[in-house]
């Protein structure tokens, strides 16, 4: 088990009332599997992903990475060395080229990486489907699908085992959506990564190894 959420509680304080987004939520995730967390808008799936990626902290409960509390690892350090995050709106730096965007996390992480980082970055982009001529373009000159591929390459750049994606195909057409899902499946099954994708799409959920449904703050594992 690479990642485990234990009794997570997350709420918004509304006057004297607490509005629970997640209530006693628990789940565990293994390497080599492609997971989806399915839920409607406002169901709390993005908050759940934020807690798993240490972009936010729960009011109670713990997130364990390789059986170690990520709070103890340190949220910043955990994000730096242990997790790759992909966002719906890509969140690339527009003043940098595609390859430069991939190089950014490589300079931030403390993980051991090959000396020639630029070559690694080009190879990663190529593997994801971005050829060198496109890798040297500024990211705002790329299509949405290409930008999301760059974002995936960036998430993989630090050689992490855990990939978390928040609605990664939300801004893409169906054809592109499938290509991206195929990449995730390949990463899980061929490269033994643990890929967790938050989505509201049943089609994507059907392609995953396991789906969790999130309704009114309660997470249930689908059979």
């Amino acid at each position, binding site marked *: 088990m690479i990642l485990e959420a234990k009794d997570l509680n997350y709420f918004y304080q509304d006057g004297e009332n607490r509005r629970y987004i997640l209530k006693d939520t628990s789940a565990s995730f293994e390497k080599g599997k492609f997971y989806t967390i399915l839920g409607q808008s406002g169901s709390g799936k993005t908050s759940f992903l*934020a807690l798993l990626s240490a*972009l*936010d902290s729960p009011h109670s409960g713990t997130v364990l990475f390789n059986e170690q509390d990520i709070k103890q690892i340190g949220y*910043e350090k955990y994000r*730096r060395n242990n997790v790759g*995050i992909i*966002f719906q709106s890509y969140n690339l730096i527009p*003043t*940098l080229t595609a390859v430069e965007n991939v190089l950014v996390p490589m300079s*931030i992480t403390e993980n051991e990486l090959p000396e020639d980082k630029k070559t690694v970055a080009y190879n990663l982009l190529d593997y994801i489907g971005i050829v060198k001529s496109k890798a040297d373009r500024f990211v705002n000159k790329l299509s949405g699908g290409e930008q999301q591929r760059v974002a995936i390459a960036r998430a993989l750049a630090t050689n992490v085992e855990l990939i978390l994606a928040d609605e990664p195909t939300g801004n893409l057409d169906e054809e592109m959506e499938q290509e991206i899902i195929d990449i995730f499946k390949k990463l899980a099954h061929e490269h033994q990564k643990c890929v967790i994708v938050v989505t509201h799409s049943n089609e994507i959920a059907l392609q995953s190894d396991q789906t969790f449904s999130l309704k009114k703050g309660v997470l249930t594992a689908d059979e």
Partner: protein
Amino acid sequence: MNFIKRGLLGITRKKGKSLILLAVIFILGNLISGAISIQQATNNVESTIKERLGTAAMLEVDYEEIEAMSEEEWMELEISNIDIDLIKQIGGLSYVKYYDYSMSTAIGSESLESYQGEETEEEHIIWDGPSMEFTLKGINYAPVVDFEEQKGKLVDGRVFTTDEVENGSAVAIISNKLAEKNNLNVGDTLTLNNAVYDYSESGEEELIASRDVILEIIGLFEPQSAKEDKGESSDGGMMDFMDIDYQNTVYVPNEVVSSEERYYWEEYVKFDNDYADMLVEDDDLEYYTPIFFLNNQEDTEAFKEEVMPLLPELYLVVNASDQYEDIAGPIESMSKISGYVLLVAVIATVLIIGLVVLLFLRDRKRELGIYLSLGERRSRVVGQILIEVMIIGMIGISLSLFTGNFLAQGVSETMLEAEHDQFQEDMMVYNEFEIDLTTDDVLESYEIQLNSNYIVMFYVVGLLTILVSTVIPLTYIVRLNPKKIMM
């Protein structure tokens, strides 16, 4: 792609914003640079002029305080003399390089012709009344402080010996011009005449008694006034008068002056018994003017602080450099204005650059959130922004270093002209320190320079100002929540 490289790319890839920031820093940098240039120039003037004014300090009666007294206080006023023991005690302080105390008197001569200046040499001046054309100046410091301080220079013979000073030997040092006029040389004797007159009745003077003062010439001096080298002075008449006065000064040991004073008053009181009652003690005849020369200009305040408690009531310490304020009016006002400009410029820079950086940061909120979501340390994100701003700041400051200096020259010239018009009557120092400096001298020594002091000062002030103005908006980054930005 570490934070340093990201910072550098941030400058080159966002040219528009970099140029806006550069322009703002350049404009504000000119203000700071100009103000610092003027400040440095005025400070240089102050140190140069104070150096020329010298380190002399004297003990004077505080006439301002006396003037402020009520009539009753004034009636009871009693000013005691500074006695020799106190002078010696003050002279023994560590700040004092050497000191002297002097007693002077005017004296005439029947055999000696006084020096009357170059221009009036041929004119025949008829004096109506007793001749007192010479100043008998007593000294206690054997090497003569006037020579040590370059007021005069020994050109022939020698200075006094300690024995001669202590014993009050009848030896003298006179000016070269006075010696030439009377065909006197070192080793010759000169005869002065201490004549006692009564002026009391009908305004006609009456000779009561007189005696000759025969002195051996041991040395000749020449005045070393700074103005002598400069040719025409701005106030030739007064300078000539001072020069003639000095040429007719005869340096002798204090005891010689004291003895002649005693003779004078002894003879006078024989004639006027009312005076005898007033001069009860011998001490009343011994009034010395002390002068102290300090080791350093910087010691003046410390010297003042230490000496003031030792002085009798109503006395104060006056330094030669205190005269600076009297002649440096235009410079002082420029110094004040440039000080205000510097303060306003620094505050404006902090506010304006702070605001510009904050606006740019808000614009880059997503980018900063990305770095944080990737696990970048906040300190490095702050470092990246600092690098960007400081590099642009460095370029802006370097450009304004020259233009601000150039600007300061133009502004200074205009301001000095305007200020000088208000000081049309040149202030000049004529006092017991006998220093000949005018407002023109002060203005002449004003010079905007591009020296290392100015460069270091400007870079320190400029970069610190930019640093402060960047650090304030950077707290914005520290408070950023990556989840709120990214999701």
